[in-house]
């Protein structure tokens, strides 16, 4: 049910990434990852904690440079961050000296298009369900509301790609479900390509059109599972439960130890 087929095509081509540890040794973190993400897809990256998912996502964002391989967005090589790739972290990182409105308007002002697109600020605040909180400072908002503001701030630039690093990881189950549904609405409305890191298998099954299962560090792709269930998805349908089981099995097969546990969405 992908609505956009023109832009937001991400080609991750044999990407590897090292970090240098305190002893000066190179530590391979992302190992030869190749994923082709079609325009308008919703991809979930899953893998053990510390395997390199965030690293891969930050490389797509352009905040990190790949040591080997390339990432192209619509045939342009990604070398630095840009407003066509929005980012939302687990920690909302709202500018705490700015009201919700100022936070949301930040991208427009930074790009010098605020005058022309002023009306978008209210529009996006309404879209994420924060009407009435325009003048509120971030620390007066709940975690879920802060995350809503972070979504509006990222989306106001109308990015081709929305990168999400466990955006609902710190929220309670009820808020998480509400925001997952809201995200699906936004994704359908704007048609941006979404790449989301998550720990929650159910979340991946409910949201993704494509689930990338990765191994422990260094992250390699174990499997890419297509998920063509129609939206809105029923978390408890036979198909969803089957898929959850399958992915959990694959995740465990890619681990070196069994310390890692995955949430199956039941709490």
């Amino acid at each position, binding site marked *: 049910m992908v609505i956009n087929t023109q832009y937001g095509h991400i080609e991750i081509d044999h990407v590897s990434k090292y970090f240098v540890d305190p002893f000066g040794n190179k530590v391979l973190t992302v190992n030869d990852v190749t994923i082709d993400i079609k325009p308008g897809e919703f991809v979930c990256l899953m893998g053990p904690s510390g395997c390199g998912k965030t690293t891969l996502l930050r490389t797509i*964002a352009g905040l990190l440079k790949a040591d080997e391989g390339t990432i192209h967005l619509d045939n342009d090589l990604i070398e*630095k961050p*840009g407003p066509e790739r929005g*980012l939302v972290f687990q920690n909302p990182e709202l*500018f705490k000296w700015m009201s919700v409105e100022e936070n949301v308007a*930040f991208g427009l002002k*930074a790009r010098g298009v605020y005058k022309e697109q002023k009306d978008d600020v209210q529009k996006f605040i309404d879209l994420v369900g924060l009407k009435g909180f325009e003048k509120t400072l971030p620390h007066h908002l709940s975690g879920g509301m802060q995350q809503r503001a972070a979504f509006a701030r*990222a989306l106001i630039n109308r990015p081709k790609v929305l990168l999400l690093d466990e955006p609902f990881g710190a929220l309670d189950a009820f808020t998480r479900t509400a925001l997952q549904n809201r995200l699906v609405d936004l994704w359908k409305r704007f048609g941006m390509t979404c790449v989301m890191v998550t720990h929650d298998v159910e979340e991946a099954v409910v949201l993704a059109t494509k689930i990338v299962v990765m191994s422990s560090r260094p992250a390699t792709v174990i499997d890419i599972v297509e998920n063509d269930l129609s939206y809105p998805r029923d978390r408890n349908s036979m198909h969803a439960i089957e898929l959850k089981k399958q992915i959990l099995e694959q995740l465990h097969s890619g681990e070196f130890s069994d310390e890692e546990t995955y949430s199956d969405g039941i709490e």
Partner: protein
Amino acid sequence: MNTLPLVSSGKKITYFLPFLLALVDALLDLLIPTHIKVIQLGPHYFFYLMLFVAAWFLIQGVWAWISKKKEIKYQPTIKFTSAVLILSGVLLILTDKTMTLPKIYFPSVNNVLASAVSEREILLKCTFYSLRLLFFGIVIGGFVGIVSGIFMGWSKKVNYWAFPILRFIGPLPTAIWIPIALLVFPGLFSASVFIVALTMWFPCAVQTCSGIQNVSKGYYDVADTLGADNKYQIRRIAIPAAMPQIFVGIFSGVTTSFVSLMLAELMGARYGIGWYINWKQQIMAYQNVWVALFILATLCFLTIKVLFVLRNKFLSWQEGMIRW
């Protein structure tokens, strides 16, 4: 609809405590004879001052009794003002009335007030000169401090070269700069401004630099992906995020500036509170020294008050900020 009153009516009587204490102070001066060895330099200014203070606090008390808004502001100050008024009375007895304290260092309270009145013109002039020096020193030192702090905090390269210099210069005692300042600057005033500015500059630069370096990296990541360039990030993220620490630098700079003011005015200035204190100290006129110290303390108090107002305005976003 029965709500408990915020303040019990028994407590409300205490709103007139400062008034009563000031009245008692005035009566002490009127009724107890002054020690015979005290050479009075003028009329009983203490008596008149306390009458004025009493009238002032009578108004305050009545106002607070009537107005809820005034009450909330006035009530917490009562304890402190009462203590000050009691101390004033005690001081009067220990000096003017009994001469129990060493008379050179603790001159008659009435004589301190008398010398304030008789030297009011030169004191006013000195206050003006000191304020001018402080103003230029604080503004220039603060500006240069914050700007250099921003560059040091933002750019690794600038930091590499400038920080060691800052670390070396900062802790040097201000006094050693006097000969250099006199040599380098064309006039006495600019040299004095330099001395004050230098003491303002150091804490401002250090705090701004560390404030900017401590800004959460996540903010920059977000700003990068929202299309903000470096200049925009400095203006809209680095500086506002570092603002709480910049204010810490300004506060500590301003308070040390008052100390270096004294020093700057010893370089040969013709007027100024520091110069005045030094002069009166040399001729052992301690009643004048007390007056000047009181003026200096008041200036410092008022400056800090202004800073708090500014801070409340600029940092109202801070979580759980203590309001002053």
